[in-house]
């Protein structure tokens, strides 16, 4: 019976089709994007009322056989559907309009993905195409300028990760770095372990609602990194090759030449002799002329005998010339270079209903801007998932990388840092050994030899030559990382999904050092070598139960889950000295053991999490989440914490009353509030009092206090509020305006005690106890805007700008730790900063430079009149009385010694910072930062540029301070010293109103140098910057031509990162760090230029 019915049905169908077949025609056509004019690939074409259909090819072309009177339905994700009647035509071209209302764009969120429109928290996303434009080795470097609220500073050496702060700085004790989550699992490694080419997207979770599910690690924001997977059913492969140059983006400061150096040095030393040894000027000049070679070493690079270099008035003989052979006085030439950069990637991917896969292999080799710094990385990845049955999806991501980073200037001591030596080396010292006539002093093989300074007694870096050391020494890190993640999503009872995910990552990192026996640190030990091994084990195990249910206009989604995180590292350190064979770098080559130690550290978390989402007609979205987190970092009694958030989004454009408002689309309003935490300000065993193990004295174990107890420690909690309005105007402008307010409470603070309480470290001056005290608020506004200025078929031009206004302020410090400095209560000093209520964490509080006394050329500071006096009144000052808890007026001030004080026109000044007043002097955090960008596309060419900027910050320019300091040791000098004070301007008197000048360079004087060049507001400079962050030019070969040779696409591109940096002073890099204290020893931002070709198959 059944068979009969089937036969009958078939027959009927065939009969029905016969007339249709008879009238069939072939229709060809092209489907294009109405905005861009680009072909829409893989758009679906369906004959209305039938199951018949086809899809466009990669260029948007299609061919289909249809009845003459058929109606075709064109559809593609992200476009509005469109119908067209064939009406006998054989060519049907269609322009599809992008669907701006309902872009079903999925974004990665905490523990899953969500439709972009349903997100109630603050997130920013950077996609793979933007990443691909940037020649970076660590993907963390692409965030600068790409997302509002994210302040990012680039690393300087190859392979360096960027330093990132999301929506301000909430924590004080150091950890303000965001949490990185890779493919859903918290990441314990370095971002440079990842190949940027493997990354599909970076998503920054900025507020509590988006990040609450990461509980006690979420308060600094979370960066979700998602790796690529196969997407289309087209099996594709791509090969890319990039070649480029890596060099220094920031120039060196303007420094004086050898002749000016001689004059400045002479003056400084001579004045020192007069002031410190009581010589007359004539005696001092005579002493200098006689003893110059003992002060400067027996170097005379000039063609005039040493005794004739200066006349009886102490003036340098400028007619002297540098001897011909000295062509190696500029140490920069031997320190900096144009490093070569190579980057190769091969990847393949494919997807079908039942499976998808992605694999890649990458090799990167970057030579750094300083000699002997480089980074190379091999990386491989395979992401696979299968759906064997409808209810099960399972897969694995497997990745491995090997990398080696070589000799970095970063972190090496001033003695061994070639960069710093090139910054400070006096311009009269050659890199190589010379004969007295200036010619090179060659070795027995006829080669130039480096000058360690010993032959001619160079007083600066004697017995050292960092350039030479960098050549002979080894200092590199080799890291192997492997990661494996397996997951299974089990769908059951229609609405439920159980997801189980396990992730293991292992990293082995080995630091190898070798100090040679010829020059430098290893010389005294006859060569030495060390190995430091770290073995990290990380695993995460996650079980999530998801429920997704729609009924009518309502959609509900619930998630409950459990996660545990395990982190452990084992450390081992071996140090040997006394080498057997010269230059042998392996430990076997050394005869005596100086150190061998090892230990393990661990960190664990256990968490229960849940989330509920509700969506009504895609118009109203509500979301709430809750997580309970336990951490091993705190004492048993304070271990567990609860974190939560609520958020809502209102899609205003979907309301009836907006239907007729044509000029605005996608208008949405969202608001969120929640509480998240941060346990990372504390060490792994932060709550315990500790006695260190591992040292010995006299051959026996020796132990002393290394940490004070802090049993009451809990995580810092952050209350975060965020609200935003976003939309699209006139179908060509997008805007987002957002306000945020984060208040971090229970700050983990290293509270310093007076040193007399007893220090706990030898490597830093600290007596700290970690406490939860105080609170900090970060608030601000984020704006972003972009516009399509030109939107034509073959010509597009858009422009975007974003800005974040931000303020950071300490709301509360504990009363129990009231500290009274300079008349302030509840304050705590940290270097150039002072933590005080009502002020920011990065507010400078430094000695106040009042100007230069034009009668003496000395620097004047404002007097600290809470402790000192000059004139007789006010001998008694205020101090904080701990018992009375108030300021009492009984402090016995002391008088400033005569040589350090002056009263000018009735006002008291001091010349020694010991007696000087410190005061607020701006902040090192910018008030506004952000970026603007523009993109131009014309036919197959595209050009884009990204500019980043920051305004309103201050820096202490320590690198400049180095160059302005003239002491008895030779040193390089800044050209500003050429205009130093030498005598009182004519007409100036003791009582002149303009006696004090802020613009005059103080006198050059080795005796007063300690005080004139003290860290004070004199060295404060604007930290504003504008950086041409990236310029990218690309050309794609016409598809028709490419296809004709059997390829999918060929793109040529050229890209430059950090093309130009504009700052207040040449040489200064305000992006060195958030603290705004600039050092001459840091490796600055690199400029990286590449050209590349990418071929798709």
């Amino acid at each position: 019976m059944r068979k009969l019915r089937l036969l009958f049905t078939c027959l009927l169908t065939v009969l029905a089709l016969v007339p249709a077949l008879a009238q069939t025609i072939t229709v060809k056509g092209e489907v294009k994007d109405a905005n861009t004019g680009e072909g829409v690939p893989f758009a679906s074409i369906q004959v209305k009322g039938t199951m018949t259909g086809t899809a466009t090819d990669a260029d948007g072309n299609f061919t289909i056989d249809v009845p003459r009177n058929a109606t075709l339905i064109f559809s593609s994700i992200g476009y509005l559907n469109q119908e067209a009647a064939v009406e006998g035509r054989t060519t049907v071209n269609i322009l599809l309009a992008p669907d701006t209302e309902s872009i079903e764009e999925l974004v990665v969120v905490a523990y899953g993905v969500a439709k972009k429109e349903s997100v109630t928290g603050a997130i920013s996303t950077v996609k793979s195409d933007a990443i691909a434009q940037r020649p970076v080795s660590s993907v963390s470097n692409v965030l600068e300028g790409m997302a509002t609220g994210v302040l990012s500073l680039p690393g300087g050496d190859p392979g360096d990760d960027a330093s990132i702060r999301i929506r301000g700085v909430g924590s004080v004790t150091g950890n303000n770095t965001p949490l990185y989550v890779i493919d859903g699992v918290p990441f314990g490694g370095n971002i440079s372990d990842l190949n940027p080419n493997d990354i599909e997207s970076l998503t920054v979770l900025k507020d509590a609602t988006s990040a609450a599910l990461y509980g006690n690690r979420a308060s600094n924001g979370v960066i979700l990194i998602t790796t690529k997977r196969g997407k289309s059913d087209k099996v594709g492969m791509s090969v890319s090759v990039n070649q480029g140059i890596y060099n220094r983006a920031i120039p060196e400061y303007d420094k004086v030449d050898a002749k000016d150096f001689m004059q400045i040095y002479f003056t400084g030393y001579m004045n020192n002799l007069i002031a410190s040894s009581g010589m007359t000027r004539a005696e001092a000049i005579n002493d200098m002329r006689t003893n110059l070679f003992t002060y400067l070493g027996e170097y005379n690079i000039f063609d005039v005998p040493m005794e004739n270099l200066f006349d009886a008035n102490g003036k340098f003989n400028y007619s002297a010339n540098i001897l011909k052979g000295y062509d190696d006085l500029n140490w920069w030439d031997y320190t900096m270079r144009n490093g070569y950069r190579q980057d190769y990637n091969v990847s393949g991917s494919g997807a079908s209903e039942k499976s998808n896969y992605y694999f890649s292999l990458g090799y990167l080799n970057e030579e750094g801007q300083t000699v002997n710094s480089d980074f190379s990385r091999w990386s491989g990845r395979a992401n696979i998932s299968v759906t064997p049955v409808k209810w099960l999806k399972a897969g694995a991501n497997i990745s491995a990388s090997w990398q080696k980073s070589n000799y970095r200037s970063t972190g090496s001591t001033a003695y061994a840092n070639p960069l710093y030596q090139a910054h400070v080396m006096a311009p009269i010292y050659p890199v190589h050994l010379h004969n007295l006539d200036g010619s090179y002093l060659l070795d027995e093989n006829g080669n130039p030899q480096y000058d360690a300074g010993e032959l001619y007694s160079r007083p600066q870096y004697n017995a050292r030559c960092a350039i030479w050391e960098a050549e002979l020494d080894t200092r590199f890190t080799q890291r192997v990382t492997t990661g494996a993640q397996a997951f299974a999503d089990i769908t059951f009872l229609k609405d439920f999904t159980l997801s189980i995910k396990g992730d293991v990552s292992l990293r082995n990192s080995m630091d190898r050092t070798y100090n040679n026996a010829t020059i430098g640190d290893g010389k005294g030990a006859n060569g030495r070598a060390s190995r430091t091994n770290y073995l990290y084990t990380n695993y995460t195990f996650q079980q999530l139960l998801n429920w997704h249910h729609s009924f009518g206009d309502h959609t509900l989604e619930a998630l409950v889950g459990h996660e545990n995180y395990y982190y452990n590292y084992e450390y081992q350190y071996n140090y040997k000295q006394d080498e057997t064979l010269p230059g042998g770098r392996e430990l076997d080559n050394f005869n005596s053991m100086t150190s061998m130690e090892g230990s393990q550290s661990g960190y664990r978390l256990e968490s229960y999490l849940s989330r509920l989402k509700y969506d009504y007609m895609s118009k109203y979205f509500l979301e709430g989440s809750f997580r309970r987190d336990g951490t091993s970092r705190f004492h048993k009694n304070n271990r567990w914490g609860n974190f939560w958030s609520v958020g809502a989004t209102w899609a205003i454009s979907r309301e009836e009353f907006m239907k007729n408002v044509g000029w605005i689309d996608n208008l949405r309003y969202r608001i969120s509030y929640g509480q998240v935490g941060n346990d990372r300000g504390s060490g792994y065993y932060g709550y315990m009092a500790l006695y260190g193990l591992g040292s010995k004295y006299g051959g026996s174990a020796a132990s002393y206090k290394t940490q004070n107890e802090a049993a009451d420690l809990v995580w810092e909690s952050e209350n975060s509020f965020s609200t935003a309005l976003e939309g699209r105007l006139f179908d060509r402008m997008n805007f987002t305006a957002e306000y945020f307010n984060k208040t971090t409470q229970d700050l983990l603070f290293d509270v310093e005690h007076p040193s007399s309480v007893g220090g706990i470290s030898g490597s830093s001056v600290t007596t700290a106890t970690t406490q939860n005290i105080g609170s900090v608020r970060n608030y601000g506004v984020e704006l972003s805007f972009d516009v399509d200025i030109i939107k034509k078929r073959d010509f597009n031009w858009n422009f975007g700008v974003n800005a974040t206004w931000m303020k950071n302020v300490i709301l509360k410090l504990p009363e129990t730790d009231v500290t009274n400095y300079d008349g302030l209560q509840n304050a705590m000093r940290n270097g150039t900063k002072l933590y005080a209520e009502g002020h920011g964490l990065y507010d400078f509080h430094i000695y106040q430079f009042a100007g230069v006394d034009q009668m003496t050329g000395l620097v004047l500071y404002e007097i600290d009149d809470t402790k000192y006096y000059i004139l007789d009144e006010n001998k008694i000052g205020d101090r904080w009385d701990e018992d009375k808890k108030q300021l009492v007026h009984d402090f016995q001030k002391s008088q400033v010694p005569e040589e350090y004080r002056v009263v000018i026109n009735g006002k008291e000044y001091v010349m020694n910072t010991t007696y000087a007043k410190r005061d607020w002097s701006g902040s090192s955090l910018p008030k506004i930062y952000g970026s603007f960008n523009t993109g131009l596309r014309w036919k197959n060419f595209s050009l884009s540029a990204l500019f980043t900027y920051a305004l309103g910050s201050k820096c202490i320019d320590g690198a400049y301070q180095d160059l302005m300091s003239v002491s008895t040791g030779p040193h390089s000098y800044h050209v500003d010293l050429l205009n130093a004070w030498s005598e009182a301007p004519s007409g100036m008197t003791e009582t002149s109103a303009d006696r004090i000048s802020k613009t005059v360079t103080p006198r050059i004087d080795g005796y007063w140098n300690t005080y004139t060049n003290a860290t004070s507001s004199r060295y404060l400079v604007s930290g504003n910057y504008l950086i041409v962050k990236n310029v990218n030019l690309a050309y794609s070969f016409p598809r028709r031509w490419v296809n004709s040779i059997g390829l999918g696409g060929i793109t040529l591109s050229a890209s430059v990162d950090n093309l130009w940096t504009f700052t207040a002073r040449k040489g200064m890099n305000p992006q060195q760090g958030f603290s705004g204290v600039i050092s001459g020893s840091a490796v600055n931002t690199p400029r990286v230029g590449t050209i590349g070709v990418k071929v798709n198959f």
Partner: protein
Amino acid sequence: MKNMKKISIIALALAVLVSFGCSKDYLDTYPTSSTSPGTIFESTDAAKVAVNGLNKLMRRQYGAYGQGYNGEGTVRLYIGDYLGANLMKGNSTSFLNSANGNLYVSNTSSLGGYSWYYYYMVIGNANTLIKNIDEAEGTDGDRAYIKAQALCYRAYCYFNLVQIFGRRWSDGSDKPSCVLRLTGDEPDNLDRATSGEVYAQIYADLDEAISLFNKSGKANSRRDGYTMDLDVAYAIYARVALTREDWNNALKYAQLARKDYPLQSVADEKAGFCNPTSEWIWYQYGAEDETLYYYDYFAYAAYNAAASTVRNYPLLISRQLFDKIPATDIRRAWWLDPAGYEGSFNTNTMKASAQNSKNKLWVYGQDYATQDGRVGILSNSCVFAYMNFKIHNNAQPGIGNLCLFRSSEMLLIEAEANYQLHNEAAAQALLVELNATSKRDPAYTCDKSGSALMDEIKFYRGVELWGEGFNWFDLKRWGDTINRKKYADGGNWMSQYAITITPNEKNNWTWCIPQSETNYNKGITSTAN
């Protein structure tokens, strides 16, 4: 039925979730590179590790202040000698400001800040020991012994603090010096104690320590001279009492301290002061497997050290002192006498011209080093007139045992105390014992009296203890003037060091309280010294 099934599946899924919950102690982690005070003070055996920790704190790297900061050795050399009148670092201006007394008033100077931080770090650990040791498991004897040791460390540290941050006894016993912390429970905000109060506490600690050592039944049971025992307590007491101008106690404890430590032989005098001899009462252990690298005292002081600071800027004796040493005194050979080599060294820096020119004095200096069985200097070391050959090291870059107390000093303390107590004959006899009897200067006799006798004692302190960290402390307590002369004037100081500093100049040679204290301690009611 259908619902039942649904519910059971959900229940199963939830059960899967919950079953992955971790065991109760999953979140308990413990460090492996450190331990808790509970473990340390559990027993006297464990507490010994903390006593040894005090030793370690006195000899470790303090990198926060820079290379060269190594615990006690730094105070000895940088303060005790660089700031004085008998020792200079050839051709170096690195210490110019401190040596000329310009940094006493700087509250950010490394030297002042370091001395304060370092001594209080030892004191803080000693306080914890003193407070907790009574509860530790063990014998009464062991507890008493450990407590006595901790008290001695504390007394020694306070003694150094009061010398550096307080005025000299004769004009400052009522003036504020350092902060007195004894239990660790004091509030952060604490005013300074007067020198008199600090000395009283040092006496109290030493008295209690001596009584506890005696009670412990193992007063002199130490195996090694680098750990603390009763004799060290006596030696500290003698030095403290001398500085406090308490002549009777100085005399008494100096005698007690040295009774088991006979003066060292002439051979030992020449052996380089890097290994213990018969007269070393207390010293710091130094060996290759406990190297401080370039931080070590010997990397700055030993003439044969590989450190460039020695090879280019070795220690020199003041010519004003050297020229007074009799020709018959074997100690004259501790320094390179340039007699006969005038003209082959720079008269400002004392340096024999560059090594490549094979200058006469340079050649002589190289030879000189190897005379008398000494270790030679390194071929790339510079040679200076008046350079040190007293102190050498055992291994590179600068490894040796550093003597802190020895009998020669105790003998000189006795001599000075006797002089002050008007026992001039006894003082003379002691000088004869130190110089002639010991054969350091067989020709030595002493018939000086009055201030000439005191000058004689000062002179032999200067010679015998040169480089061991006494000179500045001595000059300060005596209220003597530093008078450094240039070569042309009979000295050998570089021109910028050639100054006169009177006792009341330069803040009375008293270091001001460093910022690391005043920034956090608002109990201090006056910054004046």
